[in-house]
């Protein structure tokens, strides 16, 4: 397509600033030669290089040139606009230049950091500078829009991360919607018995926070609910939540469990594995996940309840409920809420131990996961806290295997962070409860945080035996009489340099952490990114650890990567602070990158209307042209690319700007 070029209205006076970024850029790019090259480009009034353009003196240099040399456009060839575009825009705006007259040329991330050969790097830097200079000629002094922010916050996930973030925001006076898909809040932490390294009882430190959430006037706690759809943008999200039918009137139920007693489903035969006890016990169709469930309200499983499945049941539960809280006619409720910020705290999924066939989980009765042992040693667990093997005997020797599913290219290459400490805790608990001899099989011991190494020391002094090596297999083939009837752990002891066979009664697999099975779906719903392994991606690994690439959406806890409780809580606090910062500011500035229709050119062909993913385009039937609703437009550019007549244009990315940029790159090849 041949474009008729509009020429700029005023005389251009462009300043080009080539940043060294210390040695980050200067070690690969010849900054002096790039500066001299820039100085000779048309309309360039001044070109300078500077060690750190982003420093105060660097910014002052630009401001001084604007004032003294009458610059009306500025190119900064430095790092990614993600980092410093705002800095330079603000510096120019301070001396009266429109921030949209500043153009960044990214010669660090796009050039010096990724190019081996200095000569090629310099050539590329020059191309990008030329492109930026040419693009600027067609920049327009746009206005950023200010949009008011809705003060409420949505938190997705009611584990310790979501609980902590909710309380912080609620205490700061914000209204919080806490949406949790399980029938109770509490998450994985509620399943734990003790927490390392201080061995506080998990329930003792968690349940007070759970009831604080329940009782807080600023928190709307929606359990058994899931986010269906998210629309809008930072400061103004419209969220659709499905509140699944519980078949219980939540406001009437007091959690007395009379209905559970009364449920006709016979023990063990038709009952289903209890999710909270990771299948170690069974539950009925109506159940309360655990004694301190919050809300203290039962739930009816529609896939087990005879009344709901077949419409035929004696309904002994209804009879038993003195408060008439059971309601078989309930149906899912769809609620729409407006929030300004969203914190995603959807947690993790424990590694499925069956995937490693050679460890025998699911095949040998006495191979357990760490999560199962948590439940077995817990006083409210299926055995009332008695640590017994499945045949009722007490283990005399136990082996705890580290790194199950972690640091293993076959499954997950990453370290799950929490399992070393979790496995040490297991060793301690097994020893304490049974007096068994315990072996821990580790690859590397990772006990890096406060009080952790001391905990490891303590476990060592308790007489736990540590064998360094990745376990090859757990097997039941015996070489000696001593091994008969035992599980044999085969491992190369890499400190001694021999292959060992260690017979044990009980094997505990320290399973790693994985992204939730539906993390991909959550990612799409909230329009955020995932890293390779499927955990949600933070905006910057160091400087934006709780932000996402979608403004207004923050991350907390293990959904962003494996974390233990202290780190999760710290991150939840950070996410709450960031969300608070956004909603308390009261407004957001929206980059004016929206599309618009040139009324003169538009033929009203309607090509663009069905293509817009945000339903921002409609047709003005009178003028017979397309109209874009700027409030809905996200600036994706789909309509611009699709428009057959070139009537759809996009601010910051007009055809002229893009063609000039391309020609700028090509002019210096």
């Amino acid at each position, binding site marked *: 397509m041949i474009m008729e070029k509009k020429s700029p209205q005023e005389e251009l006076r462009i300043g080009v600033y080539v940043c060294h970024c210390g040695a980050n850029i200067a070690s690969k790019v010849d900054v002096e030669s790039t500066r001299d090259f820039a100085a000779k480009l048309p309309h360039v009034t001044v070109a300078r290089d500077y060690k750190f353009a982003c420093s105060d003196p660097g910014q002052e240099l630009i401001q001084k040139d604007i004032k003294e040399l009458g610059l009306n456009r500025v190119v900064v060839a430095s790092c990614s606009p993600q980092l410093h575009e705002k800095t330079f825009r603000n510096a120019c705006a301070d001396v009266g230049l429109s921030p949209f007259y500043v153009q960044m040329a990214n010669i660090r991330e796009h050039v010096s950091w990724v190019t081996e050969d200095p000569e090629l790097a310099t050539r590329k830097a020059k191309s990008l500078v030329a492109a930026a200079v040419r693009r600027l000629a067609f920049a327009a002094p746009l206005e950023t829009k200010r949009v008011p922010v809705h003060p409420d916050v949505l938190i997705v996930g009611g584990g310790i991360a979501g609980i902590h973030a909710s309380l912080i925001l609620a205490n700061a006076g914000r209204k919080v919607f806490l949406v949790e898909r399980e029938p109770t809040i509490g998450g994985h932490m509620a399943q734990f018995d003790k927490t390392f390294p201080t061995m506080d009882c998990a329930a003792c430190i968690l349940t007070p926070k759970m009831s604080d959430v329940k009782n807080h006037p600023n928190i709307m706690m929606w359990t058994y609910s899931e986010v269906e759809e998210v629309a809008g943008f930072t400061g103004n999200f419209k969220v659709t939540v499905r509140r699944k039918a519980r078949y219980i009137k939540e406001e009437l139920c007091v959690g007395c469990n009379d209905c559970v007693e009364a449920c006709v489903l016979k023990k063990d035969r038709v009952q289903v594995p209890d999710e909270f006890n990771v299948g170690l016990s069974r539950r009925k169709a109506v159940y309360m996940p655990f004694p301190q469930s919050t809300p203290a309200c039962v739930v009816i499983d529609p896939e087990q309840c005879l009344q709901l499945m077949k419409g035929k049941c004696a309904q002994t539960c209804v009879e038993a409920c003195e408060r008439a809280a059971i309601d078989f006619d309930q149906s899912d409720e769809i609620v729409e809420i407006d929030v300004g910020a969203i914190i995603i705290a959807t947690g993790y999924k424990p590694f499925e131990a069956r995937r*490693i*066939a*050679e460890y025998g989980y699911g*095949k040998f009765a006495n191979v357990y996961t760490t999560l199962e042992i948590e439940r077995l040693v817990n006083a409210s667990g299926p055995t009332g806290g008695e640590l017994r093997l499945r045949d009722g005997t007490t283990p005399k020797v136990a082996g705890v295997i580290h790194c199950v599913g972690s640091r293993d290219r*076959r499954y997950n290459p990453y370290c799950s962070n929490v399992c070393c400490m979790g496995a040490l805790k297991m060793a301690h608990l097994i020893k304490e409860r049974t007096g068994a001899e315990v072996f821990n099989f580790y690859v590397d011991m990772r006990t890096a945080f406060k009080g952790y190494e001391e905990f490891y020391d303590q476990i060592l002094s308790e007489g736990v035996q540590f064998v360094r090596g990745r376990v090859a*297999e757990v*097997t039941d*083939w015996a*070489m000696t009489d001593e091994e008969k009837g035992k599980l044999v752990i085969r491992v190369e002891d890499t400190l001694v340099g021999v292959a060992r066979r260690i017979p044990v009664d009980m094997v505990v697999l320290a399973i790693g952490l994985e992204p939730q099975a539906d993390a991909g779906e959550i990612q799409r719903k909230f329009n955020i990114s995932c890293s390779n392994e499927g955990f949600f991606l933070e905006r910057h690994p160091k400087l934006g650890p709780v932000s996402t690439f979608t403004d207004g959406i923050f991350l907390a806890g293990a959904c962003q990567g494996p974390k233990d409780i202290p780190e999760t809580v710290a991150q939840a606090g950070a996410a709450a602070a960031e969300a608070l910062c956004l909603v308390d500011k009261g407004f957001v500035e929206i980059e004016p990158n929206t599309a618009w229709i040139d009324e003169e050119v538009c033929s009203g062909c309607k090509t663009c209307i069905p293509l817009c993913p945000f339903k921002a385009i409609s047709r003005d039937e009178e003028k017979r042209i397309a109209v874009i609703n700027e409030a809905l437009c996200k600036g994706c550019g789909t309509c611009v690319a699709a428009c057959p007549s070139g009537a759809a244009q996009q601010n910051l990315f007009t055809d002229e700007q893009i063609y000039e940029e391309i020609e700028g790159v090509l002019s210096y090849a």
Partner: protein
Amino acid sequence: MKYLYYPGCSLKGTSRGYEESILAIFEKLQLPLQELEGWNCCGATAYMAVDEIKALALAARNLALAEQVAGNEPVSLVAPCNSCYLVLSKAQRHMEEFEDIGDVIVKAMREAGLRYEGHVHVRHPLDVLVNDVGLDALRRAASQPLNGLKVACYYGCQVVRPYATFDDQHNPQTMHELLKAVGAEPVDWSLGTRCCGGSLTGTIEKAGLRLCYILLREAKVRGADAVATCCPLCQFNLECYQGQIASMFGDEVDIPVTYFSQLLGKAMGIDERTLGLKRLFVPLTTAAV
């Protein structure tokens, strides 16, 4: 898809029964194997240890011949011996992955008037039977199902290591599936890829025999009527030293050691002589069959 058969030395020597049964069952499944004309040593064992590149060049010649026979047709070169299968696969991969090795081999072949474009697919019969023939076809072909014959499925090391192309590296299942399809009952053991001793039986005998002993004893402990193998060396080690093992460890370990293909053939109603089952030192007791 064309199927060419690469026998290698063992199938013409110590493991005649493997060749006989493989050819018979493929015939029965209407997928006759055509022996690669002019094949030579695959380059396994000692060769590989002495001069890797020469060993790989030796293997590559077979690949080039197979490509020549196939013309432009896609071709599977079926190598039943685990060692052959591994070395041919290794030659294929090394030529693709390592330019220096590829160059030497290409040059060597050019001297012999050969060239190789990399179009041959090296396959193990376990792979072909499960993925090309399919378990359903095997079920249909099993006119005399094995009626719960208890089998210890033994894969050996090379068929899934280091390249696990068609089965799980740590817990292979294809032989289990095949034998289950024809009515056998694989016993529960986790020693499927444990070392058979390899050449140790000929060098450090005691160490080698101990490894064989573990496998044989465990097969018996688990109630197996027979061990099924897919590798000539494994079969040889497990079958031929049973007497020595018994006197060395004071434990009877007599158990028939068959090729999986012999059991499949039996289920298809092919007679024992054709399948080479008469060659077994410890006869397969047919009580269960």
